[in-house]
């Protein structure tokens, strides 16, 4: 089966700094793929390059066979990719509901209310808190709100940047169960994580990124058994 998302020798960075040197990867429709690596390895930069938040300086990004590099974030989102950014980036002085609705701002009103129902089914907590200001939610609820906001655009591909960041283990477990349910509904997921054990548990395949390059790729089982991954990322 051909890839839904394909990155081919992508280079991206900030000013003189090249954060991603040579990243090639593939995500097939319906998969959960993990992109793992340590701080500063280039995980977030890769996601930002896919979404058009950072220009792709070299190489190419394709989504469903069409070039994505060179497009702005608005066009990328319109093609069916939603990005749940690192540290949530909610609008703290807006309510939960307003945050969610902004995720579907480009869609028709009726489709928006369907999407809202789906998000509330997945995250009943958000339904209870819909009138509350997003800034007053707990960390876990904020992450749910951020993921829900991404889902409001009814994406084919969901990009998640460190959804476990700063959350208690029990909350992380809950969030990852939600992600599994989202994937089971047919949404492809590209997951950036430092919590490698959790990420591999959820994923079909994974890539290890080091110093802006893909150092290792394989199925969940292959990565979990790799001596390098076990030593460097799982601490075994």
């Amino acid at each position, binding site marked *: 089966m051909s890839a839904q998302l394909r990155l081919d020798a992508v280079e991206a960075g900030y000013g003189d700094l090249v954060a991603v040197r040579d990243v090639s990867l593939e995500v097939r429709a319906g998969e959960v793929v993990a992109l793992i690596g340590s701080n500063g390895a280039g995980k977030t930069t890769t996601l930002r390059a896919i979404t058009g938040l950072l220009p792709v300086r070299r190489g190419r990004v394709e989504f469903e066979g069409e070039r994505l590099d060179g497009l702005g974030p*608005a066009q990328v989102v319109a093609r069916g990719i939603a990005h749940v950014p690192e540290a949530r980036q909610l609008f703290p002085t807006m309510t939960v509901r*307003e945050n969610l609705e902004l995720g579907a701002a480009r869609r028709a009103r009726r489709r928006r209310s369907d999407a809202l129902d789906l998000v509330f089914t997945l995250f009943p907590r958000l339904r209870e808190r819909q009138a509350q200001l997003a800034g007053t939610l707990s960390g876990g609820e904020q992450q749910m709100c951020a993921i829900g906001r991404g889902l409001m655009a009814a994406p084919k591909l969901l990009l998640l940047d460190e959804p476990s960041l700063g959350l208690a283990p029990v909350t992380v477990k809950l969030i990852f169960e939600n992600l599994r349910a989202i994937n089971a509904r047919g949404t492809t997921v590209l997951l950036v994580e430092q919590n490698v054990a959790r990420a591999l548990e959820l994923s079909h395949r994974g890539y290890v990124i080091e110093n802006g390059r893909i150092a290792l790729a394989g199925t969940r089982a292959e990565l979990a058994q790799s001596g390098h991954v076990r030593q460097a990322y799982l601490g075994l």
Partner: protein
Amino acid sequence: MRWGGLAALLVLLALPAVLSSYAVTIFILIFFYAYLGQAWNIVGGYAGQLSAGHAAFVGVGGYTAAMLSNELGLTPWVGMFAGAALAAVLGGVIGYLGFRFGLRGFYFVLLTVAFAEVGRIAASNIDALGGALGLYITFTGDPRQFQFQDNRAYYYIALALLLLATGVAWAIERRRFGAYLAAIREDEGAAEALGVDTLRYKLLAMLVSSFLTGLGGTFYAFYLFSLQPNAVFGIPMSVEIILRPIVGGAGTLLGPILGSFILTPLGELSRFYFGQSGLYGAHLIAYGLLLIGVVLFLPEGAYPRLARALARRRARP
């Protein structure tokens, strides 16, 4: 709330019948600066893009309508839209330069100030525009030429302008456009990541804002019968435009209006009383102290605080 607004409107409509001529003048200034503040509020408040050069749009709008009237005999009732359109073109240029190249915060402030200053210097040095002396409009008292014997006509026009700008701001607030602008103001990066076309909506806000501000330029010209480059294009004018929404609450519908009801009479009366007692310029000190107080104690403006107090009173049994 709705009934309160309607009642306030009825009072304002009836008020000129009982007010002295001086009081009518103060209300005209309240409405006019609230109008300019509301126009600024669309880009500066809702979208959070601090333009400190809105005087440029007043200048372009006023000079255009005055020139068209003086040179071609075109009635300002039409010329005002030509002036507003030109102001919007300038707003589009400033907005595109600022937003396309990602100027934020101070850099955008400086860009807007620079454009207003260029306008001031240009108007001061172009003889066809009256140079440093500015343009004078011959008083005819002909309503078809936007001129009125009776001060109260200006009162109603200024009130209508204020209602127009407030209606536009209200419509924006209720639509997706308003939600986009709020998202841009709160966290532009996050708005962008959600797929909001931030350049487009900031630009649109700038166009609407500069158009309305330009419309106000015509009122200014034909209310005062003169346009001086330093007065209309100058930094003090830009500051006057910004102060009211900031004091009243930027990004709120009633903020610019409340701000103008606070600041305009204060400015006028303190100028009058301090001037009478020979303390020329002391009104600026009073003004300055008030601003420091607002920034320290009401950083989000007076309206959000007032709205919360009212909500609490209503919630009480």
